[in-house]
């Protein structure tokens, strides 16, 4: 769209190529919601949460849409980035299998093989998941692959299971495979964790708090718009992404799945984006268990804050004051 | 004597930017087994071209060359050849360059190694066996190439100005060596030279080529007894033959004269020429 002279230019980087889960961001741009808040948002897709978090940290990008697990991990390395709004607050992490594979529950994974993408959330938390479900990871083959190869290998029966997200990967796998996919969701085995949200570097947040606030306010508005009319939101995608690689049905399915994960059990009654300290503590613990990060190195306050959100979050849940 | 090398109505022309260059006009002559033939002719007339064709390295544009009755239609390799440039392989020492001949022909190593060393010794290159081509002088490189052509003791020798870069005395010496070799084994030799003296001294017969396109301007028998001693050069018969060949040359005109120049024919009366 055209750019008003006074607008703040904001570079926003998603973690991966646009999916149905990101419809609020797309709608915000497409319908001029950000512009109405004085922001000229330039939305681009990234190459994984870790990279997005780093480019946000060093100022190449202003804001990001990234994964909480990666964020905790990055924070442990000293990357000064925090999540300012949680957009997927229940864990979509899962292991998928095909019906004929005989994998119906975690224990069935023993002796099977699945492509492993280093740095990807479901893989990172898999040791914790295995521990929680009493599966011996030693008997599971985890060859290293990249994301497209992981899914192609699974669809091609080269491996018996694959890691993924119930809100993003599952609809896609279903569409491609044209078969019923078995889902073993981590959250159904007691492993719930925060997922995607808006992240911002500490320096940018300190220098442009108004921009961050305006962005979150607009995103909240856009989220409501998507919830109100998902099909209209899907059309925004086609206006913004000329490659238009995803089918409308797939986008719709991804959004519907994401919408169900918008808030955690603890933030069910909270306004848009508020995250809960206890949810962060759980997530941090899982990452610690999954990746061997030193316990206690990362505190909820290191990685999240509700201070820029438009609505009034319950102060008792606040992840912590700014550092 | 039957014709050993039979050049039968051979012509050769090369395609070139400004229309084809005819190097050899229809040419016919025979070379008998054991005969020593010298070829003289103006620069660029087609001598090298003819030798290359005789070795089967280029095909005549028309006509045929037969060696020992067999038409030459591919490399005829039962011969020893000296090219106008020494063509030594730069990564081989003098000795190894000579031995290339033995290697390609799969001759036994040890005896030919000795033979090569002996040949080099004979042409005055003892002590230079392990030198690389770029450490040799022009004449030395040429002598290495000669040794290479002689190594396998071939029936037929095609020598394209093999002594061109040698000083008078080294040349005399090697001429005598070549004569001795020839007398001992009676090889068939076709010898291109730009020295009329050398041609008369060495050959049984001298062919004088006309300027491009080469034709045979004269075919002169040299009747001196063998072995010829250097002294025959001082005889009137020798001078007469040299003079006769120079006359042929002169009559043909070496190249189109420039009006300001002294006519080339004027130059044709000297006694001692290269």
């Amino acid at each position: 769209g055209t750019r008003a002279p006074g607008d703040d230019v904001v570079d926003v980087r998603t973690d991966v190529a646009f999916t149905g889960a990101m419809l609020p961001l797309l709608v915000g741009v497409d319908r001029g919601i950000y512009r109405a808040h004085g922001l000229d948002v330039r939305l681009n897709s990234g190459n994984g949460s870790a990279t997005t978090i780093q480019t946000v940290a060093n100022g190449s990008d202003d804001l990001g849409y990234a994964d909480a697990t990666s964020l905790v991990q990055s924070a442990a390395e000293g990357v000064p980035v925090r999540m300012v709004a949680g957009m997927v607050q229940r864990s979509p992490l899962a292991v998928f299998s095909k019906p004929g594979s005989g994998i119906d529950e975690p224990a069935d994974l023993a002796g099977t093989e699945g492509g492993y993408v280093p740095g990807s959330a479901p893989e990172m938390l898999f040791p914790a998941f295995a521990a929680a479900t009493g599966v011996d990871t030693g008997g599971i083959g985890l060859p290293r692959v990249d994301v497209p190869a992981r899914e192609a290998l699974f669809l091609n029966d080269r491996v018996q299971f694959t890691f993924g997200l119930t809100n993003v990967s599952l609809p896609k796998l279903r569409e491609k495979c044209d078969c019923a996919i078995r889902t073993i969701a981590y959250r159904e085995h007691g492993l719930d964790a925060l997922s995607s949200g808006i992240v911002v570097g500490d320096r940018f947040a300190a220098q442009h708090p108004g921009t961050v606030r305006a962005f979150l306010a607009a995103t909240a508005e856009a989220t409501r718009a998507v919830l109100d009319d998902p099909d209209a939101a899907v059309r925004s995608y086609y206006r913004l992404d000329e490659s238009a690689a995803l089918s409308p049905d797939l986008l719709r399915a991804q959004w519907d799945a994401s919408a169900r994960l918008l808030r955690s059990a603890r933030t069910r009654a909270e306004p848009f984006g508020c995250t809960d300290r206890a949810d962060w503590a759980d997530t941090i613990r899982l990452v610690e268990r999954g990746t061997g990060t030193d316990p206690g190195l990362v505190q909820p306050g290191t990685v999240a804050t509700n201070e820029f959100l438009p609505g009034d979050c319950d102060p008792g849940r606040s992840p912590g004051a700014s550092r | 004597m039957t014709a050993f090398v039979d050049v039968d109505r051979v012509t050769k022309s090369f395609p070139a930017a400004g229309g084809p260059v005819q190097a050899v006009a229809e040419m016919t002559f025979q070379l008998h087994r054991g005969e020593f033939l010298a070829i003289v002719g103006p620069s660029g007339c087609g001598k090298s071209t003819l030798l290359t064709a005789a070795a089967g390295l280029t095909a005549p544009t028309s006509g045929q060359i037969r060696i020992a009755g067999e038409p030459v239609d591919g490399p005829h390799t039962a011969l020893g050849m000296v090219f106008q440039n020494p063509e030594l392989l730069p990564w081989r020492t003098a000795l190894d360059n000579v031995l290339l001949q033995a290697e390609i022909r799969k001759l036994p190593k040890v005896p030919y190694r000795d033979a090569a060393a002996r040949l080099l010794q004979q042409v005055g290159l003892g002590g230079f066996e392990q030198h690389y081509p770029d450490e040799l002088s022009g004449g030395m490189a040429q002598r290495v190439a000669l040794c290479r052509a002689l190594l396998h003791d071939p029936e037929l020798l095609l020598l394209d100005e093999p002594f061109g870069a040698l000083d008078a005395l080294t040349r005399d010496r090697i001429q005598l060596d070549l004569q001795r070799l020839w007398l001992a084994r009676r090889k068939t030799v076709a010898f291109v030279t730009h020295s009329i003296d050398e041609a008369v001294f060495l050959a049984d017969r001298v062919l004088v080529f006309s300027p491009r396109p080469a034709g045979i301007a004269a075919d002169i028998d040299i009747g001196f007894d063998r072995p010829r001693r250097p002294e025959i050069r001082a005889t009137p018969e020798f001078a007469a033959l040299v003079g006769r060949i120079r006359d042929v040359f002169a009559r043909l005109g070496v190249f189109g004269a420039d009006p300001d120049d002294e006519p080339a024919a004027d130059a044709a009366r000297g006694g001692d020429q290269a």
Partner: protein
Amino acid sequence: MTHIRSALLPVGLLVVCCAVWQVVVTAGQVPEYVLPAPLTVLGTMVADAPLLATESVPTLLAVLAGFGLAVLVALPVAVLMTYSDALHRALYPLLIVAQVVPKVAVAPLFIIWFGFGQLPKVLMVALISFFPLIVDALVGLAATRPQSLVLVRSMGAGRWQAFWKVRWPWALPSIFAGAKVAVTLAVVGAVVAEFVGSDDGLGVVLLDARGNLDSAMAFAAIGWLTIAGLLLFGAVALAERVLVPGGRRAASAEAAGSL
């Protein structure tokens, strides 16, 4: 006549390959989301031509800029290294180090430092095409016939003249061998850079398509990349024809026969 036949042969081979591929895929031996049929790919290449053409622009610009940069740096450095032994000894090991460091591995640093724009792509392309250029240029410049240098030295040629009149023509065949390898690697470099992080380009299309398991689009992008690579290679080959002097140097070919 021979020209047409010489073009027919490779095209024929290519067509045969594609036909086999088509049969294998349509016979259901390979699922379409792994390897789409060539006709499907062709269809996508044509149908999505506007998108693919748009996305080709940044990729090609990065390739051209990066390759140009590599040429502009590699050739002078090769020349300097040819003239200065000390420089040669000092730089060569560093060049090797720079080359053997896996570029795929350091590419993320570029993104972190330079963002998702053209700059990291250009640098990546330059980095990846640099080595073959310099190695072949060094070989070519060293292959110069020393006697030719002696000749021009006796005429009073300075380095500059000796370089342009003698070394450069002697080295050109080698330099172009390096350029041919480099220009194809340049395309690879741009794709790698776009894989690691970019806002646009055919590499992004390819990555997105793979992420979406849209193999037809992925292969269509590969097809466009291949065509771009062929065109660039063709441009280098054409430059070679024009610049390498004495194309008629094959006069002695006949006597060499088929050896």
